[in-house]
């Protein structure tokens, strides 16, 4: 077994690993555009941090989105935007998650509900406008991740809602429909929405009188069901309505009904690891060819050969069997 060939092949394999160029090798990466709801209902504190202290939905979204970003493979990219009322805005186009991680972290950390430039919360319009925005700023191949609790304030008139299915279909798939994930935030139980003054100091909670309890926009679908309907003077009736619009929970049914026509996935935000799993669904991964250094393969083989070359003869002989070693011993 102490033949020169083992050590010669070690040398050849090492030569190969030194000279080997980087080979194109397929690997996965992800491109996301995070769009985060910064309307007031996101201030509801119905999540808990690791210490069990209550944190707001917005803080939860920021923390979990960040830890998901941290886990993404290098080469993936993340862009960021926020929306309020029905208007989304772009904060930055996708950045690479490894090289620019400090900037992504800082920007996500600094998202604040007080960035909101208007106060209403019109989720379905915001979603439709986000899809359009992504076409405008040429993020067609990027996966939309839309964080919201689904609280429409004021409530919308479904007759005038945009048709998400139509937005996501186009002739010859040009531009292609946008893939994405709708992330519902909040607890299933209803909670009160905190109210702040101009300085950002909490001054209590919204009460039933503070918010419209039903829509008064446009024309009702079926006037006969509305009490006190007068076509000109009271198209929405003359009765004050009671409701729970001042309380908020995650509107899962509603969000699913948005996700379905828009062909988006739906996920209810609970933990960072579950969010990461939902984000790295196969539908969202992009194959890309990466120049990969594979020189470790011949080097490992070289090491094995050298190891064999050094292996004590006695061990090798034992492996080869007793039969062969016996005749050698015999003359003694």
């Amino acid at each position: 077994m102490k033949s020169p060939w083992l050590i010669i092949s070690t040398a050849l394999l090492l030569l190969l690993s030194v000279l080997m160029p980087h080979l194109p090798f397929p690997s996965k990466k992800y491109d996301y555009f995070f769009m985060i709801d910064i309307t007031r209902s996101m201030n509801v504190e119905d999540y808990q941090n690791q210490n069990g202290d209550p944190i707001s939905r917005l803080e939860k979204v920021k923390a979990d989105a960040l830890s998901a970003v941290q886990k993404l493979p290098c080469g993936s990219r993340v862009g960021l935007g926020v929306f309020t009322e029905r208007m989304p805005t772009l904060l930055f186009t996708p950045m690479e998650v490894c090289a620019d991680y400090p900037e992504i972290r800082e920007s996500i950390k600094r998202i604040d509900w007080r960035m909101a430039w208007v106060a209403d919360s019109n989720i379905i319009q915001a979603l439709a406008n986000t899809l359009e925005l992504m076409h405008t700023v040429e993020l067609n191949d990027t996966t939309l991740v839309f964080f919201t609790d689904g609280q429409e304030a004021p409530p919308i008139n479904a007759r005038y809602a945009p048709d998400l299915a139509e937005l996501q279909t186009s002739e010859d798939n040009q531009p292609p429909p946008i893939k994405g994930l709708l992330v519902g935030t909040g607890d299933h139980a209803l909670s009160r929405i905190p109210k702040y003054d101009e300085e950002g100091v909490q001054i209590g909670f919204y009460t039933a009188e503070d918010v419209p309890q039903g829509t008064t926009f446009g024309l009702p679908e079926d006037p006969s069901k509305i009490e006190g309907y007068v076509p000109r003077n009271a198209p929405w009736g003359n009765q004050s309505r009671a409701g729970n619009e001042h309380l908020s929970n995650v509107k899962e049914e509603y969000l699913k009904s948005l996700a379905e026509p828009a062909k988006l996935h739906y996920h209810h935000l609970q933990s960072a690891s579950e969010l990461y799993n939902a984000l790295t669904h196969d539908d969202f991964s992009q194959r890309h060819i990466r120049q990969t250094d594979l020189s470790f393969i011949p080097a490992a083989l070289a090491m094995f050969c050298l190891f064999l070359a050094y292996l004590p003869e006695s061990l090798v002989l034992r492996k080869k069997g007793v039969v062969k070693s016996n005749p050698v011993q015999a003359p003694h």
Partner: protein
Amino acid sequence: MNIAFAQPWALILLLLAVLPFFTGIFRKRVSSWNRLLPASDATRWINRIIKLLGALAFTSMALGLAGMYQTEKTFTRTGTGAHIVFVLDRSASMNETFGGKVPDKDTPAKSQVARRLLAKFVDERPHDLFGVVGFSTQPFFISPLTEHKSATQAAINSLTSPGLAFTNVAKGLGMGLSYFQDQPHTGSRVIVLVSDGAATLDHRAQRVLREWFERYQVSLYWFFLRTENGLGITSEPDSPQDDNPRVMPERYLDQFFRTLPIPYHAYEVDTPESLEVAINQLDDLESLPLVYNELIPRNDLTCICFLTALFAVLILVGIKALEAK
């Protein structure tokens, strides 16, 4: 030399480096009497060298397989440059062209022109740190002061998304100034306000801004993207009745900036070309000595490891070839 490993678990292979001290690569030969082959000093040394070569080969292969690399380093150097914060107006009127029209193929919107020129400017200033703030009715944090140009470029791209609501200059500047709170004072500090409108500042905002500009010693550049036939910084009021901040906010904002105890430059920009001229002037003016960090990227050492192993093994091959058959 900061050495680290990509796959530290492979370092266990280092144990193999002791192998050459217990066994050899040569055939054991039977000799009739050991005393016939006395060990000379030369053979002892050669024997040690052969063992060391084997150990070297194993060690360097193990280090190579563990993915040895030199960690990235930041060198502190001194050059010329600045800490620049762009405070970008994201109000709805930025979507229009300089002519106040809806943009088309030949005449891009003001925001697009600004984006292109700022992106070029960022590329041409290698040592500067850039931060980006957007503002409309409220300010929003876009990217921190950073030397990563790719991040700054991505942040400037935010100008491609449609504008939002009103122009609240005071809050935008306030957030821009807050970037300098924890920054070491080195090089020039600059705020570049890019806006196409102005707003009245109340007394409280004026006092806070004056105090902050003075405390952080930040110079201010105002690139006012003037719409054709619109009011400008230097517009004179037609009648004394019009001479008030409600009617002429630009004029009054400019007058307020002039009273600040810091260098202030205003550029009224009404064509893409004049914006370029303004940016070139900023380029010339802001180059104080700056202590900046230069990043030396991580240096992969696996190839060197394998080369060392190859060198050791080649010598061993040579010695093996000399082995008596």
